[in-house]
């Protein structure tokens, strides 16, 4: 479904992506992992067209995406930090995003799920970080798209919201969606991910199932297995 071919990206002197090749098939949950600064967010932003790679090809459903924007109608993105215009009300923001994407949406269901009903007429500037993240999640999941990209989705969520979020992700997976997640919370990965993509030094260092990873690193605990991979960078 998604192909990255020979992707290079430099920010000044810093090389973030260094000839990365990755292909992601349709359906399932893919966890993109790696130490801080390994290029997870850059990789995602390249796919979204927010970061423009120096060289390389990215295709989504067999079509080149570089310089285009229509394909984004078929993907939902949850950004890492949720910060919205402080003078807009929650309901206005939701309506605005709906307005930008002429597509069927199911925001009502999600608003109830996350208990945002009381906040709809509040200004976004007055919301707490966790509530903003909930709004962010509603905005991401309200559209029916084939690809869902979540960048650190669990930030600031309370335990109940976290359970709802995990359920939501599972349900989307059952519908045959492709879901990309980056996170540092290993329990989330353990619970949800079908496959792990491990980035190191701007390349794919490991790609496969959780079991394969445990086997390769000879470690039964996922957290330790990942730590084992990362420690190679520190060595």
């Amino acid at each position, binding site marked *: 479904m998604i192909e990255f071919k020979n992707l290079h990206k430099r920010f000044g002197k810093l090389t973030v992506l260094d000839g990365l090749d990755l292909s992601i098939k349709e359906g399932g949950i893919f966890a993109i992992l790696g130490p801080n600064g390994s290029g997870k967010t850059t990789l995602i932003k390249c796919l979204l067209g*927010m*970061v423009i790679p120096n060289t390389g090809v990215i295709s989504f459903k067999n079509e080149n995406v570089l310089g285009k924007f229509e394909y*984004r109608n078929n993907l939902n993105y949850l950004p890492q930090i949720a910060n919205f215009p402080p003078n807009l009300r929650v309901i206005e923001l939701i309506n605005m995003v709906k307005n930008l994407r002429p597509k069927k949406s199911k925001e009502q269901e999600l608003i109830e799920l996350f208990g945002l009903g009381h906040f709809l007429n509040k200004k976004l500037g007055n919301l707490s970080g966790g509530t903003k993240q909930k709004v962010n999640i509603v905005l991401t999941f309200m559209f029916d798209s084939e690809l869902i990209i979540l960048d650190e989705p669990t930030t600031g969520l309370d335990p109940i919201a976290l359970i709802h979020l995990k359920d939501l992700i599972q349900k989307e997976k059952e519908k045959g969606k492709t879901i990309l997640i980056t996170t540092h919370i290993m329990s989330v990965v353990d619970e949800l991910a079908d496959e792990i993509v491990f980035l190191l030094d701007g390349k794919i260092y490991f790609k496969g199932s959780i079991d394969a990873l445990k086997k390769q690193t000879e470690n039964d605990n996922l957290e330790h297995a990942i730590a084992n991979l990362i420690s190679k960078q520190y060595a």
Partner: protein
Amino acid sequence: MLKILKYSFYDLMRSRWSYVYFLFYLLLGFVLLFLNNDVSKAVITLMNIIIVLTPLIGTIFGVMYYYNSTEFTELLLAQPINRNKIFMGQYIGISLSLTLSLVLGLGIPFMAYGLFKSSIIFDFSLLLVVGSFLNFIFVALAYNIALSTENKIKGFGYAILMWLFLAVIYDGIFLISLVFFNEYPLDKFSLIATMLNPIDLSRILILLKLDISALLGYTGAVFRKFFGTNIGMLFSMFVLVFWVILPILRMNFKLKKKDF
């Protein structure tokens, strides 16, 4: 693009600063008119305030809005919209809301004063047109600076320096060079130097219309001699349009390669 424009506009119209700005002009208009009792003098005082203040406010609002909405812009960038349209929508939204504050803030006191009955209405409307131009020019320049500077503080600093340069320092350098080279013919030099600064250009445009020779100064006189009053005005208006278009073009060019 219209949708983004609409939301940026509403967002700004609801912010406290738009009201402060509006109330400031409202107060200024009333004070000048009812204390001065002379509309044409009020227009001149207003001109002096507008050509310095609108660029400053446009610059500050432009950089502030850009840096404050970076995360929200990211959200928009992930939607199926062309990125040029996002930024053009924001840009026009800011410029329009500032222009609205200016036009309403000054328009209301002038209307209350019974401006429509006097012929000064044309001078006054030119003042508002020039003020609007300056809004559009300086918001565009501020957006250019913000787009090229990752660091908020640096971007803010550069933008304020840009304003200071065009509003104050430029005239100083200009004046010194006129004194320094006064043995040479300076007509063309001063014509070009004026066109390269939108604030000077606006001042001359208004003074040509007001037709007050005493205030016109050397450059103004050169302008009038070279073009005549009417062509001079048309020409400077034309150059002001260029001052809007060029930064917009650079903005769109910059956006093609920009990472977010």
